[in-house]
């Protein structure tokens, strides 16, 4: 099994190698990140001033919708799957993923699904314009014809996610090296195992809800139409039953990455390993019983409002455990601040800010004020950008020397970090203020009093966008050459992935290593 990859382009089409597939996931995700990012910049350019300058309101709605869909399903989720592909087999001492051909299939569906989704921009009536949450009846009775293509694109990317998740579960539960007991697994493996269960549980519900839409639009059913005895609010319940676990799908693997990086650069073992595992499992469990906190203003019975409010607040407990453990890991550590560590520390601080604004939104009576304002936009961008995106970036910098055998350019990495850090705070922090002052989300024009903060946010957005070019440049340079990395790369990092050479051989662990 010592041979390397096949030459030529078909290597990538036919590959069954977890590293090839991981790389493809990561590159695909980065391409989608840039595409979704360009859409965000269209939005921010339009919002630079009040009034309509650059785009029509209809196209603006298409941009907000496509930006959300592409970032959630095209950028964040595939990036985590890419990292799982690269790292999980190496971390547990397995030769590859459990089902390598299905692995390839899961990946290749994505470019096709997103080609289909993006092609709706050029269809008659334009792309989906009903927001990434596609609430009925906006997405049914009032939707453009391209909604049918959106529905089928969601179907196949859902199939891809389910297959990917099953593969990860089978890999983790069946392919650990002897001695790698469950409670010895790195937290990235644990968080991905739990994430995979969330995916298997909720992606079919997403398939169900888009199927209901399809039937209402084209086959005369009444799921979301009160005239026939259905209910548009039913859409929101089914959607958020998928949607809330979905947002944890986008953050649990991030917890795993940060839990790998912080101990390395604090030079201390992770504080409270088992409590981290139990906290992750608790968060995953709670994610199934909090969905209606997205719908406090829809007109729920008071018992529902209260239940979902208290259940949501409970999430702060296991999340607090995690933040406490990260901080305690750093406490009295001999810390150094390489790029991955900078991104991880920023993650801990900024994700906590996003968590606190989430707590504010969880208070049902207060949410009546915040609901559908820019405060919500600020909240979820604070958990997703410094949460998901920063952790992915941190993970890429952390493991890139292991993947390529070369060190990235540290000073360029630090510049990237500071530009991104400043850019994101300048972009999203002012959104708290305009939101509290009452600016609604998803509008192309706004009242004059919001102009200052919107201008600041737009400047920040372009800064954040520009910083990513530096990232791309740094990664490409590292792939092509640079200072050779040692096998350990960092100082005494934990984990099996550091016991193999850098770059990691095409096939690692064809015979399982022994884990003490």
């Amino acid at each position, binding site marked *: *099994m010592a041979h390397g990859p096949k030459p030529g382009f*078909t*290597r990538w*089409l*036919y*590959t*069954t190698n977890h590293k090839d597939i991981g790389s493809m996931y990561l590159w695909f995700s980065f391409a989608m990140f840039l595409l979704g990012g360009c859409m965000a910049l269209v939005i921010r350019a339009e919002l630079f001033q009040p009034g309509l300058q650059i785009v029509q309101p209809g196209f603006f709605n298409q941009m907000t919708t496509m930006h959300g869909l592409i970032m959630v399903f095209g950028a964040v989720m595939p990036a985590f799957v890419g990292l799982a592909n690269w790292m999980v087999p190496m971390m547990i001492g397995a*030769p590859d993923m*459990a*089902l*390598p*051909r*299905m692995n*390839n*299939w899961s990946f*290749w569906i994505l470019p*096709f*699904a997103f080609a*289909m989704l993006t092609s709706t921009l050029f269809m008659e009536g334009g792309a989906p314009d009903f927001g990434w949450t596609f609430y009925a009846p906006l997405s049914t009775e009032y939707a453009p014809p391209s909604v*049918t*293509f959106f529905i089928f694109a969601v179907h*196949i990317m859902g199939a891809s996610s*389910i297959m990917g998740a*099953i593969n990860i*579960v*089978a*890999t983790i*539960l*069946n*392919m*650990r090296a*002897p001695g*790698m*007991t469950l409670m010895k697994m790195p937290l990235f493996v644990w968080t991905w195992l739990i994430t995979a269960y969330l995916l*298997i*549980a909720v992606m*079919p519900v997403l*398939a*169900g809800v888009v*199927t209901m839409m399809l*039937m209402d639009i*084209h*086959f*005369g*059913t*009444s*799921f979301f139409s*009160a*005239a*026939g*005895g*259905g*209910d548009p609010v*039913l859409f929101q319940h*089914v959607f958020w039953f998928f949607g809330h676990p979905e947002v944890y799908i986008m953050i649990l693997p991030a917890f795993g990455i940060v839990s790998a990086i912080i101990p390395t650069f604090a030079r201390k073992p992770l504080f409270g390993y088992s409590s981290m595992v139990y906290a992750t499992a608790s968060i995953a469990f709670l994610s199934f019983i909090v969905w209606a906190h997205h719908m406090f203003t829809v007109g729920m*019975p*008071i018992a529902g409002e209260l239940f979902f409010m208290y259940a949501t607040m409970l999430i702060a407990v296991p999340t607090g455990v995690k933040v406490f453990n990260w901080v305690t890991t750093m406490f009295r550590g001999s810390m150094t601040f390489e790029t991955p560590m900078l991104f991880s520390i920023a993650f801990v601080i900024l994700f906590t800010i996003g968590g606190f604004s989430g707590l504010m939104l969880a208070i049902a009576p207060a949410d009546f004020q915040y609901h559908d304002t820019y405060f919500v936009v600020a909240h979820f961008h604070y958990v997703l950008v410094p949460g998901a995106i920063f952790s992915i970036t941190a993970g890429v910098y952390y493991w890139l020397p292991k993947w390529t055998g070369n060190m990235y350019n540290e000073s360029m990495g630090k510049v990237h970090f500071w530009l991104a850090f400043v850019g994101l705070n300048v972009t999203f922090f002012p959104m708290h203020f305009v939101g509290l002052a009452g600016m609604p989300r998803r509008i192309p024009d706004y009242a004059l009093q919001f102009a200052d903060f919107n201008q600041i946010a737009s400047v920040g957005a372009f800064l954040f966008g520009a910083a990513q070019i530096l990232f791309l440049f740094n990664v490409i340079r590292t792939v092509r050459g640079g200072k050779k990395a040692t096998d350990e790369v960092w100082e005494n990092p934990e984990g099996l992935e550091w016991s193999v050479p850098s770059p990691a051989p095409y096939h690692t662990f*064809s*015979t*399982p290593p022994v884990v003490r």
Partner: protein
Amino acid sequence: MATESSYYVPEQSRLPIFATIGIFLMAFGAATWINGGSSYIFFAGSLAMATVLWFWFAAVIKENMQGLNSDQLKRSYVWGMGWFIFSEVMFFAAFFGALYYIRTFTLPWLGGEGDRGSSNMLWEGFQNTWPLMVTPEQAVSGDAAKVVGPKGIIDPWHLPLINTVLLLASSVTVHIAHVYLKKGNRKGFNWWLTATVALGGAFLFFQVEEYLEAYQHLGLTLESGIYGTTFFMLTGFHGMHVTLGTIMLLIMLLRSVIANHFKPDDHFGFEAASWYWHFVDVVWVGLFIFVYVLGA
């Protein structure tokens, strides 16, 4: 955990990329077709997908025959099938959940009861009943209504009861087939599996009868308000799963009769199909209770 030293990692494979093209053509073609375009792309995609699956399963069977699959690798297939079935359970859960949300919350509110009873002012005269024979629109607009409730519903104690007996019996027969297989009695296996496939076919026959009765005599259609919607979506998706399960078992039967593929201690292909069949059976029991009996 017991990891063996060799886990078979297949060489490069063309199957997944062709499967991707197949599933993409199916999805793109279905959207084109439903939006009023031609149906050719969809059928081309389906054909491609069926062909790829044929070769894919053939490849896996061949690898197993060659002894490449260690016990550990076989466990990966077991985990894979198990969690696939769980994902199917969640798919049905979405539709059962929709049914009970409508019955517990939406319809009472539309009818003027409870917390959100004020919604009745939009649909004055609407009364909450289940089965819902008069839709809210009918209550307001009378004969001018576009969404009209059904005139009658399916009697659970006739065709659905027969189908319940058939499907429960088929779960028993497939289990007996499995027992014979484990004893190495191929003939017994073949006969009991034939019986299972026949019972699945009979179920589908009666379901078609039931749908014909609903559409032709009862005015019960997909378009007859939320009762028809939930009834046909739940029983329809179940029927599609029975169809798929019957095809799976039929293929297993042919594999046994023609190629003698199964050994007493190595027959996961059949076991996976039988798990799927038991799952479909359990969903039916849920349908019989919650849709037919408690819905009548």
